[in-house]
């Protein structure tokens, strides 16, 4: 068709754009091989922890970066996923084929029910109401006396997969987490480029225009809120298995704030940034807390500098440096 041929080609730097995620996942996949050389089991469990939080951060980036919805209660979904594992395990069910769907479903259901209300608001009100629902989940978990209340709940053993206790092997567990992160990343990349993703991206910048061309912005945003909640539930499932422990602290508002910091630090709206930001945050915590327990006194100003001078986060900073070198 003549029209199709008259469409000028899109500017393409696909390979350049894909270099970062490819490098990131290659590094992650080789860590279990490198681990015996440096850090050993500690490096392995630390990296698994990074990837677990990266799943939640990628999900949060869907909301903050692509929809402009600053959810301040994202940790609640992690906690719900973790508690699903803990509570089922307390009743003798430690089969992943059972607890994983439950963890995801519970988080998705909570997202749906709270989203019905949250999505009616925007801006500061959205932040406050997600915070309120998050705190509600936190206090509910704290008062669950049969499941440890404030103290949390120790899980007797990691989940089995189809009856096999393979997750007790740290390497297998690592690769399961890696697979989940990769799957989550690929899914989210497809999502934001899809028809659905185009609508929510448009609504972030101009909701009135999106409504007047025929889209019910509310339904689209509610849907992505549920997706982000479900992915955080997956993260919670993995976190409970990694630590073999669940506690209300997983749902605290500080944890929700940390997730926002991770996404901001890495760079909003790129998904890559969420992973980089999570790694940077947890590394900084690890490294700086070696000097002082008040490590946030150092980290805080550093974050301010990043936000002030590198608007695109670490990703934006790296891109600016690469551009600068090319121009020099």
């Amino acid at each position, binding site marked *: *068709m003549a*029209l*199709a041929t008259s469409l000028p080609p899109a500017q393409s730097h696909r390979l350049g754009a894909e270099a970062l995620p490819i490098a990131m996942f290659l590094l992650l996949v080789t860590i279990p091989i490198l681990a015996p050389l440096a850090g050993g089991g500690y490096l392995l469990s630390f990296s698994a922890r990074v990837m677990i939080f990266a799943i939640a951060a990628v999900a949060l980036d869907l909301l903050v970066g692509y929809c402009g919805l600053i959810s301040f209660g994202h940790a609640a979904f992690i906690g719900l996923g973790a508690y699903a594992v803990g509570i089922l395990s307390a009743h003798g069910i430690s089969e992943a084929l059972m607890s994983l769907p439950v963890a995801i479903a519970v988080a998705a259901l909570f997202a749906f029910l709270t989203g019905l209300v949250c999505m009616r608001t925007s801006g500061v009100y959205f932040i406050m109401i997600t915070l309120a629902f998050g705190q509600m989940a936190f206090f509910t978990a704290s008062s669950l006396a049969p499941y440890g209340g404030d103290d949390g709940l120790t899980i007797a053993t990691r989940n089995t997969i189809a009856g096999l206790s393979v997750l007790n092997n740290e390497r297998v567990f690592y690769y399961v987490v890696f697979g989940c992160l990769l799957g989550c990343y690929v899914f989210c990349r*497809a999502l934001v480029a899809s028809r659905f993703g185009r609508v929510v991206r448009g609504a972030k910048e101009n909701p009135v225009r999106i*409504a*007047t061309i025929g889209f019910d912005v509310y339904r689209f945003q509610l849907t992505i809120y549920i997706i982000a909640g479900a992915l955080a539930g997956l993260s919670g499932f993995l976190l409970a298995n990694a630590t073999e422990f669940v506690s209300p602290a997983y749902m605290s508002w500080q944890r929700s704030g940390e997730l926002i910091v991770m996404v901001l630090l890495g760079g909003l709206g790129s998904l890559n940034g969420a992973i980089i930001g999570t790694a940077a945050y947890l590394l900084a915590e690890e490294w700086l807390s070696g000097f002082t327990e008040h490590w946030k006194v150092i980290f805080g100003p550093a974050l301010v500098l990043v936000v002030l001078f590198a608007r695109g986060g670490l990703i934006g900073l790296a891109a600016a440096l690469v551009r600068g070198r090319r121009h020099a």
Partner: protein
Amino acid sequence: MPDPVLRLENLRKNFGGLIVTSDVNFDVMPGELHAVIGPNGAGKTTLINQISGLVAPDGGRILFAGHDITALPAHARARLGMARSFQMSSIVPSFSALENVALAVQSRAGSSFRLFGRAAAEASLNEQAMAALADVGLAERVRAPAEQLSHGEKRALELAIAIAAGPKLLLLDEPTAGTGREETARLVALLHRLKRRFPMVLVEHDMTAVFALADRISVLLYGRVLATGRPHEVRANPQVVAAYLGDEME
């Protein structure tokens, strides 16, 4: 006599004590271009906002293509085939011109709850969007981010978004607002080309354009319809001349 595409019945709207729409009766026939003119503050944009669903009227009814749409939200009206442009260009700034228009096509072409498949690579969406962009003379600028377009190009993009999905009614709120003489002429020529393709409600300040384009004109003053008629009738109406046209038609 065919049924009107759009009919307003006794539409009323107050902002506090200010009456912005006062018992407005108004219709648009198939194929008709019905212009709305009036001084600043006459309630023209509020009227368009009520028709498109961004402002809820306090009383009266809005009928569109046989449906009572008074209680429908904006997106549902758009789904029924109503498209609009805004006085201040309303686009998605970071999207390309093509993506802005393709998104409008997408709203009428199948479900947008598709979570997979690159929307930007959907040929059918892009072809229809290209056609609309070619209609408004933006074929060369399809890949440009919308925020980098000139003011006149943004006005044209605004029109492309409105016509892309093949609407049953176009609501155009000052399509030439803020453009220079040359660009105004280009946009008016474009409206001439679009005129028989879509029924339109046109709010416009350029009187030369209005009198050249309109099949009927309604004059709004303090939220009331002062007069409705063919251009020559409106021009000859002494009330209209006294209230509004006097200094415009020198």
